[in-house]
């Protein structure tokens, strides 16, 4: 079970860390367009909105290009848009302040669920072990019991495989 918890935590870290933040790469138009939400009500990103003469996506695309031509970094450009249009323009929550909860809660719940699962599985496993070790036959005729157990296991396996 330990590997599972470790794997889950690893995955959580890998994903929750917003990869493109503060990266040194020059910002691409597509990346910026996908980081902003079209305000026409379509619910899509500026990149995806395909409304004819969209009153929001088209000017926003132009604005992104202007910002890029001014030589700003990705972060500066996004800040510009947030200041101008409010935080709702970003297509995904930032990784700051209260918004951290948006990203981390799902993984926190997964981790908690995983932890709960581990606890429950251990308890059930222990119950099972207690039950089998408490058997009075165990010590006296252990070989016989083992033989029957093996036979039972085999039959069960065969039953399940059919």
């Amino acid at each position: 079970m330990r590997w599972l918890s470790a794997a889950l935590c690893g995955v959580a870290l890998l994903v929750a860390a917003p990869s493109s933040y503060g990266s040194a790469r020059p910002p691409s138009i597509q990346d910026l367009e996908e980081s902003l939400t079209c305000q026409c009500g379509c619910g899509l990103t500026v990149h995806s909105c395909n409304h004819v003469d969209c009153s929001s996506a088209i000017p926003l695309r132009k604005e992104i290009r202007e910002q890029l031509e001014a030589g700003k970094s990705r972060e500066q450009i996004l800040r510009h848009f947030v200041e101008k249009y409010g935080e709702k323009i970003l297509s995904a929550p930032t990784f700051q302040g209260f918004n951290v909860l948006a990203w981390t809660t799902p993984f926190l719940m997964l981790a908690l669920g995983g932890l709960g699962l581990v606890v429950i599985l251990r308890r059930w496993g222990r119950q099972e072990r207690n039950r089998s070790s408490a058997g009075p036959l165990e010590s006296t005729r252990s070989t016989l019991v083992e033989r029957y157990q093996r036979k039972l296991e085999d039959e069960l396996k065969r039953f399940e495989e059919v």
Partner: protein
Amino acid sequence: MQNIDVGAVALSVAWLLALYGLVVSLWGGWGRREELVRSGEHALLAMWALVTIATADLVHGLVSRDFNLEYVAQYSSSTLPLHYTVAALWGGQAGSLLFWLLILCSMSAVLVLQNRTANRVLMPFVSATLLGVALFFLSLLNFVTPPFDRLPFTPGEGRDLNPLLQNYWMTIHPPSLYLGYVGCSVPFAFALAALITGRLDDHWIRSTRRWTLFAWFFLSLGNLFGALWAYRVLGWGGYWAWDPVENAALMPWLTCTAFLHSVMIQEKKNMLKVWNMALVILTFLLTIFGTFLTRSGVISSVHSFTQSGLGPFFIAFLLLAAALSVGLLLYRLPLLRSENELDSILSREAAFLVNNLVFVAIAFAVFWGTIFPVISEAVRGVKITVGPPFFNRVNAPLGLLLLFLMGVGPLIAWRRASWSSLRRSFQWPAVVGAGCVAALLAMGVWHAWALVSFSLCAFVTATIVQEFWRGARARQSIVGESFGQALARLVGKNRRRYGGYIVHLGVVLVFLAITGTSAFRIEQQVVVKRGEAFRIGDYQLRFDGVRAWQTDHSAHLAADIAVLRDGRMVDVLHPEKRLYKKPEQPATEVAIRSRWGTDLYVVLGSFDEKSGSATILAYINPLIGMLAWGGLVLAAGTLITIWPQRRARAVESWAAEHRGQRSAEG
């Protein structure tokens, strides 16, 4: 003179019957008075007949173009083709609630007729629950949004169905989703009945297994149809935008899928009783939550065709249902304590539990992302957007984990797996998965997510093929059949298991489509004049001008786009722009060339008459075709699982299962 509509009368009588049926069913159930229970069931059947009449009356109004009916004037017109006129039944609010109610009543009626002699202890409370849900919808239809309201005058023409809805998917996507949504109320009703009566063995689960699969089947198809519809109609090159209403349909699917898996542990080992109850209740509540999201407009969505002030009613119903079911669950907790035992962490039971955890985690992530804007506004007073980038990033790793489990779970032995059995099961699939990575790397594919996803797809496929292969070989050597015969018999005798594998294959195909389109999609937006060409992928597209024409219904403008490959013309595509006349609304009609599962998808963005230049959007969506194929395979697998076994065999397998259960318990 205002004529009184048959449908309106039918709905009010149906409301009375639902109330009466609810009361006598509960009374009969508690007082053990069979005649009252029967009376409640008869009320349910009569209600079903009346709701059918009401629906027929509304369809009649639509087809006969009775524009004096507000609903007809609002959602249809005299030029609307017949099939869309009928589909307008679920094109607007009141109609879609009526349609929902019709499905609910029809299912309830079938259920009552099926159980005339069976499940007599549970049935009063099953009918009561279903009548309660029906009563809610009937109250909305009678007092809040009556579908038979008439206008003070008769307009000469209707305002027509939203053009976005005028698509052949309109005739099948909403009905299948509704069937799926409503189907989830059947296991819910049985679960409540089991909680009320205290009959908490797995009887209620066996009685509803087919219904749950039925609901799951339609939920799956409804979601896939919606994706295909969005892909063909919305014209942005994608098929899933993590729109709140899409999320609303996905969440119950996720919890229902989790339930279909965890229920097997209860059947085999009598464990997880509380958890299964919780999943059924959660699934039902999520279907109501989904309807609430669609109808309330609390969260903006592309599906907000019909929003109105229904939100508070749905919230109230949701809270009531939640309080009732959770209360009952807590009340029965002592009875639900089961003998939980686990032989080993390396067992199918444990794998199923992890599978459940991941399904519920994805459902939670989707739920969280959907409501986070509301939370943010409540807490910080700041409106924010939680869009596709969020959902993609959070769900991609969870989805891949699920894909992995799909390969591992079914092959781990029940109870306890030994290392040698693991090696025997996973040796070859692991080799296939690793081989897939090597092959992809050799082909120059370096996209990390895609590598993981494709190799997992290969791994899972290998596990499934291996299961079929080994099963058939075993039959061949024991019974002496030919391989084909052995394969067919193998599936026929173990419909549930091998049908399940086929469903898994369908899911693999869907994963292929998702990976292909999200990792390797190419897009191009160009402004071209007549005769000019541009390149996308292996194709060269040449713009050969536009044609315009009109119908009664709409104005069309189509571009002629020649598709060339290696200098040879292979196709001509005609992406269209349409302007619907009533209401005046533009729409796009994309043109698609599908080859080997990969689509060339072309949209006519705009056309400027003066300069004669067109804006063309072109996309190459690799493997998108696997989405539809995956749907087909998944549907076929589910049908195999759901198909009734012949009675003798069913008895035989029932006996075998019970033997197995007893020996597993002892």
